[in-house]
């Protein structure tokens, strides 16, 4: 890190010198000083005091050696240049000091912002998660205690217990993967056919879909895309769960198309669609735009995962009614 900063300073000095050689025939010596000062500013903007200082020093040395007569010696003929050096060094010092300080302040402000954001997220996470955990737990405990008191086992209550437990399992899986993503764990990206990933998501949501029609339009010769298969499956599971939850009827449409350097995939329903002000907000973490059940976690994770893949996701309303979630995934180096 620190060595790298000095290497950059040296490289910048070399570059400035090259530039000065090119400009030498057209500019006065005092103008060449400016070139070195710009170099020092560039180094200082990287935010390290040491390399900035080093760069000021190198600038004076190079200017002296290459351009101040007699050229190609450190000897100085006219004493006026000693003043030039002093001024040059002082200006370089001030520039680097200011640049470093600005940089440090910007970083501190950013850090404070991140801390505030994390705090805000943590509290909204807590309320969203506790709600989402309590609802299925209440259903499970209620159903189980009813069954314990009942003379006859009720199939409906057993199904309710299983389905709500599965909902809990999906939520826990979402939470674990979010935590993993946020702790900066690397994606295990490998080139996959998107059909494969969508296929496993459809299988995982088979019970949730409960026979709902899914129209998939995925050309056979789509290029592979580099994805983390476990996380990308989660994206489609969440999009399908979201569609099933908000659009009680009608088929789901899943379409994938090859574009220039990315793959475009959409998951669409025939539900009520989204209000204009919700289109952006549905992806905000742990914000629930409406009182809709469960919204707030799944789509935020979709966005986090897709973004981590270098892709984009957005929501739109479909002509003819319903919501569509459009995501793009860069093809990267994959064939």
């Amino acid at each position, binding site marked *: 890190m620190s060595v790298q900063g000095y290497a950059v300073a040296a490289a910048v000095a070399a570059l400035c010198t090259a530039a000065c050689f090119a400009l030498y025939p057209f500019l006065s010596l005092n103008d060449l000083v400016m070139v070195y000062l710009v170099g020092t500013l560039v180094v200082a903007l990287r935010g390290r005091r040491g390399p900035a200082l080093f760069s000021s020093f190198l600038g004076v040395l190079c200017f002296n050696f290459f351009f101040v007569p007699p050229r190609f010696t450190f000897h100085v003929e006219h004493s006026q240049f000693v003043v030039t050096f002093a001024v040059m060094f002082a200006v370089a010092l001030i520039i680097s000091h200011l640049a470093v300080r600005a940089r440090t302040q910007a970083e501190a402000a950013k850090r404070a912002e991140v801390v505030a954001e994390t705090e805000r997220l943590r509290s909204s996470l807590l309320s969203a998660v506790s709600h989402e955990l309590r609802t299925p737990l209440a259903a499970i405990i209620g159903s189980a205690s009813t069954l314990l008191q009942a003379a006859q086992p009720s199939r409906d209550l057993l199904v309710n217990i299983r389905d709500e437990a599965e909902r809990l399992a999906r939520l826990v*899986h979402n939470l674990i993967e979010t935590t993993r993503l946020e702790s900066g764990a690397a994606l295990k990206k490998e*080139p996959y056919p998107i059909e*494969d990933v969508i296929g496993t998501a459809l299988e995982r949501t088979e019970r949730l879909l409960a026979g709902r029609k899914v129209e*998939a339009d995925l050309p*056979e010769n789509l290029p592979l895309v580099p994805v983390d298969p476990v996380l990308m499956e989660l994206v489609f599971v969440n999009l399908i769960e979201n569609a099933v939850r908000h659009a009680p009827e009608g088929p789901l449409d899943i379409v994938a198309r090859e574009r220039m350097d990315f793959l475009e995939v959409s998951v669409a329903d025939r539900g009520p669609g989204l209000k204009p002000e919700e289109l952006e907000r549905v992806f905000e973490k742990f914000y629930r735009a409406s009182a809709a059940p469960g919204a707030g976690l799944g789509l935020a994770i979709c966005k986090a995962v897709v973004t981590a893949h270098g892709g984009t996701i957005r929501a739109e309303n479909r002509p003819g009614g319903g919501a569509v979630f459009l995501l793009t995934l860069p093809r990267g180096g994959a064939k």
Partner: protein
Amino acid sequence: MTERKATVLVVDDERAIQRFLRPSLEENGFSVLEASTGKSALDLAVSRKPDVILLDLSLPDMDGLDVLKRLREWSSAPVIVVSARGQESDKIAGLDRGADDYLTKPFGVEELLARIRVALRHAEGAARDPEPVYEHGDLKIDLTLRRVWLAKKEVRLSPLQYTLLAALVRDAGRVVSQKQLMKELWPEGGSTPEALRILVHQTRHRVEKEPVRPRHLKTEPAVGYRLEAPDE
């Protein structure tokens, strides 16, 4: 199934899991042994010689993968590894160390029974020749004729696509890791996981009516593939 009750050794240190596994396995005609530590699992495996071992990888006293390794030094009883989601590398490590299959927690009883039945059938079948004809739903594969039908219509496959299916038929019902399949398809090496994925993808488009919702050739994300067990 055999006349003798098959014995399942359940290795799990969670009481809640043992509490539901015992009755559901007994209900389905198995006798059940329980172990809550790696050491007692190894002891029971020696003294009682179970037919199938259900091994949870997180145990209080030993790494489940070490238990598996020690077991494999002398036992060929099928081992089904149980682990949580998101731990695909554990599953792959388990398969590499000789596990027959895996189950992802949380799992349903149907899935558990299906895995155990397949494992038992393979353990029995290891002695005799494999069934020459595989049938599952609308898919039929005849290993002696080297021919494949989907919904009674013959399917044309490339030699590599056929080799893939034949390899999966031999392990029908079980997961086959990506590594195992690559070894079988390209014994000399020189291929890539991408090539395998493309091959599976193309094969699916020949043998599945709806390739995005495969009924026969399933993907086990980040681990490998599974051809469903043949119809009874």
